[in-house]
């Protein structure tokens, strides 16, 4: 079949005045975009192979390279934008489902960007986090109704304690490299927060971080056994994922290396298929059974949570999950990332996390069960401001996935599913995985968390709040901009300009 007639996505611009033919670009590109031609003593770049990961651009020591968007020549058409056009062309060529990586990239409204924070002026002093304590320690799990009730309980409820309400989202070893997992786990350890194994099992080399590890039990049950569950800090049952609600996962057999097979406890080289649903959970009562089966397994010593994608009925769903005994509920909004998902699902299924947090928080409060479970918001947290807004809307903590990977070098080229990640993240290729030095990765992630913690504290201080508890669900500190009444009502916030 002929080469698909698709214009390249990117153009590699090489400034010949700067290029010294060192060939570093040729050596590093996993897509073979650059090659040195002995005859003309020049490096030639094939635009069509470029995925826009910018690795060569970043490594070029003379700054000779620029990766630019390649502007398509198709006539401008409101209905037929370049993305839809190219996707259609690709499908006409391949006849298959189009895959992609990372989160929803369509221009849906981002409510975080329509929410502003308050600050103290005159009537209330702002607090300077450099001079006064500013507390963001967070506990995740079921909290008793009163101290009286606590005294009646046979066992103290087990809570996760994190020094920053930001946790690393579930990303499996397999979908990302061991070095990426190592960076994340070590950073979680260092920053005293938690990381999540995803459905990748717990590799032996990461067991030293086990007391900062949330292990996942997903539909494929990969890596799960009693030891795995008992070693972890907490267990998360994964029902769904924001990038692909209702869709399972598939790690091709060629990626199931010896190490991955050991971590996932499956034979080397076999496909690791996670079914779309858990085939033992077809209803809420089934979920309850699994929650309690897991709690029994760990003798009620670990919090058990449930992760769901934010979908239309999210508030009743979460209410049901809480009543089914979950100690925390992770809600993954539709901007959440993935290693591989059908484009059509990723771009069109689910609801924004901001709305989901607000409706769930309100619902649980109405039912008087807000303290029965913590809410961890995921899917689209990009900055400390998003963290503060998510928490003020009602989340206990947030998970960061894409933000984590970006800190590790990811340039969001969305080619995770190809396994050719030049940044050494979403790949198992030994040529590429070595590009992520976990020492650097750990440092960058701890830097990120440190910076966010400082910023969160600054924002809280500005609001005159010195404990994160006083921010959590404090929607009075939020105002919407450019949102209609319905949106404001769902978010439970006033419009900018409205006083208290």
């Amino acid at each position, binding site marked *: 079949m002929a080469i698909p007639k698709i214009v390249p996505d990117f153009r590699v611009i090489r400034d010949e005045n700067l290029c010294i033919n060192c060939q570093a670009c040729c050596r590093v590109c996993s897509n073979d975009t650059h090659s040195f031609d002995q005859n003309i003593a020049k490096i030639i770049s094939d635009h069509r192979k470029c995925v826009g990961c910018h690795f060569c651009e970043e490594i070029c020591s003379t700054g000779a390279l620029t990766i630019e968007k390649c502007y398509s020549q198709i006539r401008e058409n409101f209905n037929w934008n370049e993305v839809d056009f190219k996707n259609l062309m690709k499908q006409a060529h391949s006849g298959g489902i189009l895959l992609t990586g990372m989160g929803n990239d369509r221009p849906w409204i981002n409510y975080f960007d329509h929410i502003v924070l308050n600050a103290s002026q005159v009537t209330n002093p702002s607090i300077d986090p450099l001079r006064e304590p500013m507390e963001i320690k967070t506990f995740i799990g079921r909290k008793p109704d009163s101290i009286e009730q606590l005294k009646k309980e046979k066992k103290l409820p087990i809570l996760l304690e994190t020094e920053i309400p930001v946790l690393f989202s579930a990303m499996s070893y397999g979908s990302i490299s061991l070095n990426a997992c190592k960076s994340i786990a070590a950073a979680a350890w260092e920053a005293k927060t938690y990381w999540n194994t995803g459905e990748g099992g717990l590799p032996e080399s990461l067991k030293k971080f086990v007391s900062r590890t949330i292990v996942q039990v997903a539909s494929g049950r990969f890596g799960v056994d009693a030891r795995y569950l008992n070693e972890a800090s907490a267990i998360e049952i994964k029902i769904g994922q924001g990038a692909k609600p209702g869709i399972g996962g598939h790690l091709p057999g060629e990626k199931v290396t010896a190490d991955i097979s050991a971590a996932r406890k499956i034979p080397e080289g076999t496909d690791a298929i996670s079914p779309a649903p858990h085939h033992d959970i077809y209803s809420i009562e089934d979920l309850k059974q699994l929650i309690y089966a897991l709690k029994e397994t760990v003798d009620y010593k670990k919090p058990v949570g449930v992760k769901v994608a934010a979908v239309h009925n999210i508030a009743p769903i979460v209410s049901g999950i809480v009543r089914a005994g979950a100690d925390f509920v992770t809600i993954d909004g539709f901007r959440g990332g993935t290693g591989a998902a059908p484009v059509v699902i990723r771009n069109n299924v689910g609801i924004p996390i901001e709305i989901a947090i607000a409706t769930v928080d309100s619902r649980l409060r109405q039912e008087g069960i807000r303290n029965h479970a913590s809410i961890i918001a995921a899917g689209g947290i990009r900055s400390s401001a998003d963290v503060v807004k998510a928490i003020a809307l009602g989340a206990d903590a947030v998970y960061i996935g894409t933000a984590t990977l970006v800190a590790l070098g990811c340039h969001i080229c969305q080619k995770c599913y190809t396994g050719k990640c030049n940044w050494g993240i979403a790949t198992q290729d030994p040529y590429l995985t070595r*590009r992520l030095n976990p020492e650097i990765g750990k440092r960058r992630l701890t830097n990120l968390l440190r910076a966010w913690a400082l910023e969160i504290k600054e924002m809280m201080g500005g609001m005159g709040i010195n404990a994160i508890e006083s921010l959590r669900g404090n929607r009075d500190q939020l105002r919407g901009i450019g949102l209609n009444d319905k949106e404001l009502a769902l978010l439970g916030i006033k419009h900018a300009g409205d006083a208290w």
Partner: protein
Amino acid sequence: MVKNSKRKTINTIIAREEFCIGCRLCEIACITAHSKTKNIIKAFKGEYPLPDSAIVFEEKGHISFALQCRHCDDALCVECCITGAMTKKDGKVIYRKELCVGCWMCVMVCSFGVISPDITASKIKSKCDFCLETGKPACVEICPNEALVLKEDNEQD
């Protein structure tokens, strides 16, 4: 008795193969650092001949690493140099090209095989001087993945 040492802390450049991505920018940086202009573009576009890189780069499959002089504590190359071209100065093994006659004793004893002979010139091709001028080895500075790092060997006195 206390060792009479002029050295305080010796930094050694260590190669960590598990992080070497094979970009070979260390060689480019080494050449630049020892060029006349010390400017990568001016050097590569305008200087001829360029100095040799003092790095020995090993590469096979996905494994690669860059080696350069370790400035050994009891440097055999210094001990065995018959002309005094190899000397120890402030903890660094310094090569004085003008004294070298090309006897290759240093090549013979260097455990890391990082002294490369230039047979026709009867001199050593290039010898890591730990970028004495700047104090920061250019290869370590440029390495994008910290595959080359400085390891501090603290003197025990």
